[in-house]
């Protein structure tokens, strides 16, 4: 009973976080966690707010994250995302989280360049996008290690149609040293498959829904503590899988989903994850 009440409180908390967040937006019209390729129209603006929660064996974090995106050209997009951490974790799992909205306390600016695009049919296209970003933390210490600024680079490629979607991608995040300590680097990869059932193939401006199965693999590296590499710490492996749903109506979009770990081969002493959930609301100006 106590457990159920606790879960309900968490659920209500997440909903409230979204409700008080004012104007709303999401993270694009692709997957929630995995890397994607679509960029905005030239001059297009996308505003997002996301509510994220990450549960570990002992704690749960709650965060709101805002994302502003602007299409410099139809192939070049600039993004700025900032967090509002409601409840931080004491022991933070190393993760990047979402493709363009980190699941940690970083403020991040990024540039997306869609360097390849081939629209070859009605609603169909192949495209590839490269991402580079810089970030600065809003917290001083993460997982008992001083956290500094970071750079991030990723690449993704994918296929979109009116019925099927698929993206694969990989990225790398490197944290710089701060006060003689440095968070380990973070290579990661993602794969996403999406499907829109016939029932949701109604023409614009009818609502548009699709479902994704997302997977994310993260390989956090060793930390440097007090000027020394933490030799007890080796590169960990985490693989998470889960569904997400995306609903679009005119200029509005909502996506929500969850991921659970299926592999957690972690350095001894590192905290294990139990789940990640996220809700995104989007508005395209």
């Amino acid at each position, binding site marked *: 009973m106590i457990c159920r009440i606790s879960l309900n409180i968490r659920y209500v908390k997440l909903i409230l976080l979204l409700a008080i967040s004012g104007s709303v937006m999401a993270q694009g019209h692709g997957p929630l966690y995995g890397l994607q390729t679509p960029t905005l129209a030239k001059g*297009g603006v996308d505003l997002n707010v996301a509510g994220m929660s990450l549960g570990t064996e002992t704690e749960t974090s709650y965060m709101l994250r805002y994302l502003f995106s602007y299409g410099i050209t139809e192939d070049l997009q600039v993004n700025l995302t900032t967090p509002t951490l409601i409840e931080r974790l004491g022991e933070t799992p190393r993760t990047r989280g979402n493709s363009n909205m980190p699941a940690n306390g970083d403020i991040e600016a990024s540039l997306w360049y869609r360097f390849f695009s081939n629209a070859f049919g*009605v609603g169909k296209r192949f495209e590839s996008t490269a991402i580079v970003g810089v970030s600065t933390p809003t917290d001083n210490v993460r997982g008992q290690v001083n956290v500094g600024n970071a750079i991030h680079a990723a690449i993704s490629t994918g296929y979109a149609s009116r019925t099927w979607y698929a993206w694969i991608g990989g990225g790398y995040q490197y944290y710089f040293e701060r006060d003689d300590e440095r968070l380990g680097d973070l290579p990661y990869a993602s794969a996403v498959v999406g499907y829109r059932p016939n029932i949701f193939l109604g023409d614009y401006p009818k609502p548009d829904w699709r479902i994704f199965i997302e997977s994310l693999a993260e390989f956090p590296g060793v930390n440097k503590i007090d000027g020394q590499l933490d030799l007890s710490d080796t590169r960990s492996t985490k693989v998470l899988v889960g569904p997400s749903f995306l609903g679009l109506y005119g*200029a509005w979009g909502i996506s929500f989903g969850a991921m659970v770990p299926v592999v957690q081969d972690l350095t001894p002493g590192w905290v294990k994850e139990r789940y990640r959930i996220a809700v995104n609301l989007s508005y395209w100006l």
Partner: protein
Amino acid sequence: MKNIKMMALIGILGIGTISGQIARVDQEVYGMDCAPCAYGLERGLKKMDGLQEVRVSLNDGKAYLGLAEKNDLTLRSIQEEVKKNGFSAKKAEVVLMGNATKEDGQWYIETDNERFAVSQDTSIELVQKLAVGRTTLSGTVQDEDDDNLSDQWEIILSKIE
């Protein structure tokens, strides 16, 4: 049917008072897969001066455009708007009013801002109906490279008023 109505309307209004221009465009769009894509394209097109009616269909992969009675819009500007939204503009079915001219055996239809070369794929019967001077017609404008659009097009005629 819409094309016929548009052509009839043009006839009623009096061709002599209208300069050469496009009256209707059904623009094929590739790569548009989602509601925000359609919304963005629709909004972008609606901002263009001279468009009276805009409807975007995801399932058809088309933007259906009705142009104002007097407009300066070009097919090039419409296709550039499609490209600006990240999609690829393909063939376009058009209704246009213009001047038919013949140079070195090649027929052209000229609006105020663009020139449409009549394709050799046009039926002989239709080509034989062409006459130098003002004309109203419909046809399919062939796809051009999105990165190298110009004011020159090739059109396969389907009807001459």
